[in-house]
């Protein structure tokens, strides 16, 4: 309709250098844009192949839409071709595209719609890295958290992460006037030109809009071949360019007074940029290391204290050791940096803290850096440790291999007199049916480490298939007094490049591969790869590769996948549910079977356990089945049938049971047949709102609420311990009056009996002995509840008081038992050993309560139970407002109801503890009232009442 061709909305500058094959695809992705009013400028960096001819052909095929320009000489980078492209661009906006990448179809439309709407100088969208050589075109999103939603910034300082992380120039759309007015160009003759250009553009832009749309596909070819030493050296050399670019950016930040951005960038440099190079250091000799350290030191030593303070333990250790050129301690630290679970250093214990090394302990600053107590290494048993295993010898001779190495022995965990045994295991990286094991001569202590050596007849014994299993990983299993720990072999400076490769005889003959060569994995570990050296192997393999993509192979692969899918389907939750409903629940009910479950199978504990034990004590003839969660059950009695939660046997047991007894809920989707009686014991009185009183349940749709109600309606009986429970829990779960069992909690029978002094509790005594509690000291139990982020994620546990100060002040009077909520994890420093004990792993809290002379809690429901003992309770409510204001709300105000002191700070807490006896006398009356109000039915006979009612009175056969 319009007669004059308007100026294009967008000019896309496509740069190319010797890439004639892929150029048309890149240009095509622009021409096929949903926004039609675009132009392409192909900027050829003086290619020596036919790229420029291809560009000219594209230009003549699309006159007015595609233009081609050529640089007079090769510039060697991406910057100059882009600069030249921008010079001739006519569009209102400019975007950049590399010849090996593509634009998403709607990229231009989405970019300029956002720019026009917000008036932004720069719009940035999501970039997707496509790994073109992976089997399924693996896709990785580029900093997706920056691109969760549309967002407009008046300055990049509002979102430092954008400035710091997304340094690409290609996933962006720039107003052309903006580029020209600010004279924004790429630097020449230096690597990392994007970093500087993007930084300048971000800082110059008066408005930046981010859009969540995918705009750019960055095609990546992952080099499968291992890096050579010279590659690694080159990378270290590039570091000089990187530092130079960063210095230039710093100068601009300094001029603009952008201190916060500079700090964020410093932190990122230490955490990310530096790490890229640190990874290479283990493979290089000390000259290269020294050169790198000098360059790095020259740049990072001026970073402010605040930048180092943001680093996590391992990063900080690496940075400080690098500045000191302490290679001996740095190399293990780098290993842990790359393999985060690995324990790499021998470690030392000093004054009750754990340190990476003992070398700098007289320097207080370094001592703080090297303190790794919070990492919890010292609390791990040897079979839970992933230990550094440094390769010290690699010799290939003929078909045999000699390997030797040293395994780190942190804190002398492996005792000098421990019985040691070891074997090497070769396992294909892609799942295969084969593993090969080789014996290792007896490992022995050698200084701080465990030394080992093995002669491996690799050529004779390793029999790979020949296809699919090209890469083989090596592990070493070390057995220490019967406990096994598995390590990988860290290559370090052992020279694999000049090592001989070995002959190999695949099961599919030598036409698949004839040699195997050693290489280093991305994590720095020894691996082997099959190669084809001889003519026969090379042709043989080529034929196979061709056929792997042919029709019959596709059919075979398809059939295999289908088979796997069928198997997956048969064991899927939906299928199990179907079978449960249609078949299992039609089987006859087995009289006398009772299925027990506590806390979703996590423990053998709580009221279901108390009921079970009462049944057992009476010798009632029932078949008890306990459900457990996780890999293997721990702590369950030996004479009951155990079924794993959600297993077929579990479903069948539930389907045929006469009784279900649990304290939280069997899977919501499992319907209960009418012949089965469900006794819901529940697991605690409520302070926080529950069930249909929780906002999330209240907001559910009718359908969702109906489904939830149905699950709740499965309960035939619901145990309560007070009228408070009736008003809160029973109402919240809509339990009708006739289902209520006003018996009190079976789990609390022991507490009531202990109060009445009729029973001392042999189990409690056994636990006290096992935990090594000094009988002369009083015992305090600290049992806080967990806290959640606003989005519902559980927050990490942190002590709200200084546990070392506690131990120092009260260590001679109290033993503090700390029980974290089961959703939390906790590490104690060794300095408090014997005075503060972590009891989070104890399955049942009741014996711990019996042991304790006093309780410190915050808002945990343990307060309602412990009160039965009539012993002092301290409510350390340091964050009550935050907790009570949280979206759920509470049923009553703890601050006014609490039957004990409510300290709000550490100081207040300690002054309360100074006079625990006084607490008892002052609050005795209130504690009684509290029990009357919240535990009126807990009279010590709950289990007996329940068993009487459902299984007949004691002594009577059913």
């Amino acid at each position, binding site marked *: 309709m319009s007669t004059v061709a308007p100026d294009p909305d967008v000019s896309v500058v496509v740069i190319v250098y010797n890439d004639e094959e892929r150029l048309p695809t890149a240009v095509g992705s622009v021409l096929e844009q949903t926004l039609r009013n675009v132009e392409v400028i192909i900027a050829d960096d003086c290619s020596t192949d036919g790229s420029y001819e291809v560009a000219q052909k594209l230009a003549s095929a699309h006159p007015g839409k595609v233009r081609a320009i050529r640089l007079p000489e090769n510039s060697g980078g991406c910057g100059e071709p882009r600069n030249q492209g921008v010079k001739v661009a006519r569009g209102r906006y400019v975007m950049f595209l590399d010849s090996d990448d593509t634009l998403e179809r709607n990229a231009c439309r989405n970019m300029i719609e956002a720019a026009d709407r917000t008036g932004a100088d720069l719009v940035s969208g999501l970039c997707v890295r496509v790994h073109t050589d992976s089997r399924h075109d693996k896709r990785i999103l580029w900093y997706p958290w920056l691109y*969760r939603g549309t967002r407009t910034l008046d300055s990049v300082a509002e979102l430092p992460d954008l400035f710091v992380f997304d340094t690409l120039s290609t996933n962006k759309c720039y107003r052309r006037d903006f580029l020209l007015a600010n004279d924004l160009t790429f630097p020449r003759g230096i690597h990392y030109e994007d970093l500087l250009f993007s930084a300048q553009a971000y800082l110059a832009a008066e408005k930046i809009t981010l859009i969540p749309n995918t705009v750019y596909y960055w095609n990546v070819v992952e080099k499968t071949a291992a890096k050579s030493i010279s590659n690694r050296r080159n990378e270290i050399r590039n570091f000089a360019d990187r530092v130079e670019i960063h210095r230039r950016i710093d100068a601009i930040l300094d001029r603009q007074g952008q201190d916060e951005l500079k700090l964020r960038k410093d932190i990122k440099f230490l955490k990310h940029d530096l790490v890229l190079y640190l990874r290479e250091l283990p493979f290089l000799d000390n000259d290269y290391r020294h050169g790198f350290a000098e360059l790095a030191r020259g740049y990072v030593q001026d970073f402010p204290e605040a930048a180092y303070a943001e680093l996590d333990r391992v990063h900080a250790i690496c940075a400080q050791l690098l500045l000191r050129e302490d290679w001996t301690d740095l190399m293990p630290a780098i290993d842990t940096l790359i393999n985060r679970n690995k324990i790499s250093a021998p470690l030392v214990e000093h004054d009750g803290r754990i340190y990476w090394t003992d070398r700098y302990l007289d320097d207080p600053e370094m001592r703080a850096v090297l303190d790794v107590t919070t990492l919890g290494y010292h609390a791990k048993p040897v079979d839970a440790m992933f230990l550094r295993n440094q390769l010290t010898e690699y010799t290939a001779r003929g078909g045999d291999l000699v390997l030797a190495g040293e395994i780190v022995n942190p804190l002398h965990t492996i005792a000098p007199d421990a019985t040691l045994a070891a074997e090497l295991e070769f396992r294909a990286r892609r799942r295969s049916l084969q593993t090969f094991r080789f014996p290792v001569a007896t490992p022995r202590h050698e200084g701080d480490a465990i030394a080992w050596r093995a002669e491996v007849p690799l050529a004779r014994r390793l029999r790979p298939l020949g296809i699919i299993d090209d890469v083989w990983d090596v592990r070493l299993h070390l057995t220490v007094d019967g406990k096994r720990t598995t390590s990988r072999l860290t290559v370090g400076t052992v020279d694999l490049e000049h090592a001989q490769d070995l002959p190999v005889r695949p099961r599919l003959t030598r036409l698949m591969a004839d040699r195997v060569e050693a290489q280093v994995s991305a994590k720095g570990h020894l691996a082997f790869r099959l190669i084809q050296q001889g003519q026969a192997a090379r042709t043989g393999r080529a034929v196979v590769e061709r056929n792997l993509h042919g029709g019959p192979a596709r059919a075979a692969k398809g059939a295999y996948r289908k088979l796997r899918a069928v198997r997956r389907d048969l064991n899927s939750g939906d299928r199990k549910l179907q079978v449960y409903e249609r078949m299992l629940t039609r089987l006859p009910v087995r009289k006398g079977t009772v299925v027990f479950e506590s806390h979703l199978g996590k423990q053998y504990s709580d009221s279901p356990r108390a009921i079970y034990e009462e049944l057992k004590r009476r010798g009632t003839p029932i078949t008890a089945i306990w459900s457990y969660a996780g890999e293997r059950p721990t702590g369950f009695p030996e004479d009951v049938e155990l079924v794993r939660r959600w297993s077929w046997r579990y479903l069948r047991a539930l389907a045929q049971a006469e009784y279900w007894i649990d304290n939280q809920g069997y899977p919501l989707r499992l319907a209960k047949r009418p012949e089965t009686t469900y006794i819901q014991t529940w697991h605690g009185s409520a302070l926080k709102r529950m069930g249909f009183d929780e*906002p999330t349940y209240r*907001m559910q749709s009718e359908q969702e609420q109906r489904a939830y109600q149905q699950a709740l309606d499965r309960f035939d009986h619901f145990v309560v311990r007070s009228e408070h429970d009736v008003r809160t829990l029973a109402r919240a779960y809509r339990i009708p009056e006739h289902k209520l069992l006003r018996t009190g909690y079976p789990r609390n029978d022991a507490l009531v009996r202990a109060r009445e002094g009729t029973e001392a509790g042999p189990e409690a005594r056994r636990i006290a002995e096992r935990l090594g509690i000094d009988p002369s000291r009083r015992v305090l139990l600290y049992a806080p509840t967990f806290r959640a982020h606003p989005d519902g994620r559980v927050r990490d546990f942190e002590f709200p008081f200084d546990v070392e100060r506690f131990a120092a002040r009260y260590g001679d009077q109290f033993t503090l038992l700390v029980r974290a909520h089961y959703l939390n994890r906790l590490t104690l420093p060794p300095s408090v050993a014997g005075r503060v004990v972590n009891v989070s792993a104890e399955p049942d809290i009741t014996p711990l309560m019996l042991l304790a002379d006093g309780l410190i809690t915050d808002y945990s429901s343990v307060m309602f139970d412990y009160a039965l003992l009539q012993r002092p309770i301290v409510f350390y409510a340091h964050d009550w407002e935050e907790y009570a204001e949280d979206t759920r709300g509470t049923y009553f105000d703890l601050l006014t109801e609490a039957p004990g002191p409510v300290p709000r700070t550490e100081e207040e807490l300690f002054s309360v503890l100074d006079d625990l006896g006084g607490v008892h006398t002052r609050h005795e009356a209130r504690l009684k009232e509290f029990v009357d109000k919240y535990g009126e039915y807990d009279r010590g006979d709950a289990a007996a009442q329940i068993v009487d009612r459902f299984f007949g009175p004691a002594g009577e056969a059913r």
Partner: protein
Amino acid sequence: MTERDIIFVANEVDELGGVGRWQAQLAGLLADRGHRVTIAGIAPANHPMDLGENPPFKTVTLYAQRPPGRPRRRRLLGPADPALRRHEAHMRGAADRLTQLFRAARPGAVIIVTQVWAMEWVALADTAGHIVIGMTHESFDTARKSSRFERVKKYYQDVDRLLALTQEDADRWVGEGMNNMGFMPNPLPIVPDTPSPRTEKVVASIGRLSHEKGVDLLLDAWAEAAPKQPGWTLRIYGRGEAEAELRARCTELGLDDSVDFAGQTEDVPGALRASSVFVQSSRGEGFPLVLLEAMACGLPCVAFDCAPGVREIVTHEEDGLLARPGNTTELARHLVRLMSDERLRDAMGEQALSSVRRFDPDAITRRWEELFDFLER
């Protein structure tokens, strides 16, 4: 300005409800600007509404009776299933009529598909090179809980633009891989004239008495708020299946003296002008027109922040107060704040009156025209 042929394709031409009202309003607004507008419905309405004497647009309905649903796909037969093929042939016949309609439109025409069910027919038709704009008239979260979620992703995949109600909803769809998203707010359904004097001690709630509208939550909140502000009345307009249950709940909470079930009203602006505060306690919303109406009457609004559409309309602490979804205590606190502070009511009410003008019908119509031009580029 280009005068265009604009064809709406909707489930029905004149179904009573929010979408029907929106469609008739926008069609009228576009017709007023000189565009030639047609509304094509797939099926006749279940509960037809009155489109007026001479609507300024043409209407056509493809089926005389609501067509049967797509037969369930039987795995063994696959696409060869005769029942499936019969159904498709049947659909194709109706789609052919759409094709004729599209082909008869002049270049520059725009097809607006109001709902995804209608899109199933548009997808079978030849759109003759015209711009196709799809719409999803509900929040992302509501769509996600229904079968529409998968159908939106399937049938709207290749339309030129798929419009959500808000930027936030559009972004969520982008996260699902829909890269052709845009958004368009609904226009104000009424012209604000005389605002409420805000002198009556009345809090108003207007909506169907159904689970989704959450009046049960409102009663709980009112039970916390009312004792703190005696003399105020909560007037609940609307009727629906939950009415008896709600009345019983009201009595149980002892609120009969301060709650007034006023039944359905034909005069929404009148009801709003007789109140001083508006409250909405819905469990889910799209782009609630009644909030726009309340603001257009100068009322400060208190609402659960249950959907992007709600926070798009009400700005917390400026022209209303938002509570976390389901937190009745917080909703009650907000109500008490407004009931107890006349100056705050007036300030927020006046602010509402002016800020709601960004949804002025003229402004929204212009945005539509700019979108048409943009999609032609």
